[in-house]
């Protein structure tokens, strides 16, 4: 199944897009749509709960390579950013730091990229007053966008680089926002396509292989990209290249990435002088 086919089904059946997605999964694997929606609701509530508990908390990461950024950013009075971006950035940092310190998170689509979607969800709830049921609809749509990427490309950094993890999370957060604010599946597909295009080719280069540098801050930047692409799609800006073709392109790029840039900790910022000396320092703690 690809996103275009889902949108066509929506037009044919006249059912809401999120219902079409639940029914499609039912047709494919027999999942009960009511049960599936209930599970998605639990995930959504857990995301909100985790965002609340970790908001602006000062947390050191497991290996201590980074951390304590959420509290710093929360105390900072933004000079350029608006309230929405500021809040999402704090939440993304907070949750990514919780993840890096063995705290509870909702993988979405992966643990490494777990800060992006909840950050968007939290700010839509708090600042835009979007109701929880509508956010569940949005999460179902975001899940379908992620599922299309998983089916035709990958959501694993080890397979296709960070474009597959943070890229997918960004496309999902962007789609979620657009669906909650417009209920327009066509705009959702443009938001998702614009997101993936912006992060096309992003490599997975964690220092030492740990989900710390650059993963934590990348979550925070990604949610800002999601806001920009969602806002553009809401304005009616279209991606000239359709989402499903962007996904195919992303799969090809992923295949051409050398192993050093796919979660091995051997390339990108992981291979810098500073990274090497940082790892030298913590070698003792590792064993």
């Amino acid at each position, binding site marked *: 199944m690809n996103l275009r086919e889902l949108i066509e089904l929506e037009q044919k059946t006249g059912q809401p897009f999120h219902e079409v997605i639940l029914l499609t999964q039912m047709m494919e694997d027999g999942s009960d749509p009511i049960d599936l929606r209930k599970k998605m609701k639990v995930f959504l509530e857990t995301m909100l709960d985790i965002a609340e508990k970790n908001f602006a908390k000062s947390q050191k990461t497991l290996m201590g390579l980074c951390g304590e950024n959420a509290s710093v950013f929360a105390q900072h009075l933004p000079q350029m950013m608006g309230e929405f971006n500021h809040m999402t950035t704090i939440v993304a940092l907070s949750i990514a730091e919780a993840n890096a310190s063995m705290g509870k998170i909702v*993988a*979405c689509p992966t*643990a490494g990229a777990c800060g992006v979607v909840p950050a968007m969800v939290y700010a839509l709830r708090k600042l835009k007053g979007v109701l929880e049921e509508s956010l569940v609809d949005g999460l179902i749509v975001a899940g379908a966008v992620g599922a299309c990427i998983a089916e035709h490309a990958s959501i694993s950094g080890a397979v296709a680089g960070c474009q597959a993890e943070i890229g997918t999370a960004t496309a999902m957060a962007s789609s979620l926002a657009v669906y909650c604010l417009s209920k327009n599946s066509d705009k959702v597909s443009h938001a998702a396509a614009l997101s993936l295009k912006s992060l096309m080719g992003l490599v997975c280069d964690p220092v030492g292989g740990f*989900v710390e540098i650059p993963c934590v801050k990348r979550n925070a930047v990604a949610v800002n990209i999601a806001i920009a692409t969602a806002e553009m799609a809401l304005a009616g800006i279209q991606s000239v290249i359709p989402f499903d073709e962007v996904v195919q392109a992303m799969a090809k790029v992923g295949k051409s990435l050398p192993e050093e840039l796919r979660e091995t900790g051997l390339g990108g910022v992981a291979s810098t002088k500073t990274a090497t000396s940082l790892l030298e320092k913590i070698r003792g703690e590792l*064993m």
Partner: protein
Amino acid sequence: MNLLQIVGPVMVGPSSSHTFGAMRISRFVYKMIGQTPEEVEFSLHGSFAKTFKGHGTDRALLAGIMGLRYDDERIKDSYFLAKQTGLRYSFRLVELSNVHPNTVRIKVQTQKTQHEVEGCSIGGGAIRITKIDDVDCDLSWNYDTLIIVNKDEPGALSKILSNIKANIANLYLRRINLLQAKALTIAELDSPLENLHELLGLSCVLEYYFVPKDDFL
């Protein structure tokens, strides 16, 4: 299309493969023996050995063998919990041949028995159990799994199979000891099994372990 492959699970970070996946393997062993063992030895290979504590793989493995849930925030304190409950544990970094980079071998000892299970975490939290007591297998734990130690004698398998009143998705067989005439039968079931206790009534069944599919969100 599978939304649950994309959203969730609720877990403890930092890594789907090195934390959550590792914990699933040791929780499989916990469910298989039905208790926290007296003693456990974890042998970590490849990437599991390389990043080890950096992904909390050690704490996740310990938490799993004690039967903690995946979203339990005490996973972080699993060394402390292990000491509290008197579980004896050890970790070894090893090099195994021809296995997935994220592989762990778990050797457990209870008062009654000992077992060794090998498993790997293949990404996104998906796992494979690749060996149980030296019998090669390829279990995803997406099914209820039934492990039977039976007499290695003609007709044993057909008696067992006709007594399993559930649909079998996959089946693995292997003789484990010719002298003792023992064999191992592993079945992955995709419908519920209600007559489990009847298995022990069969003369060819020596012992069995039922590992129900894990429920996590």
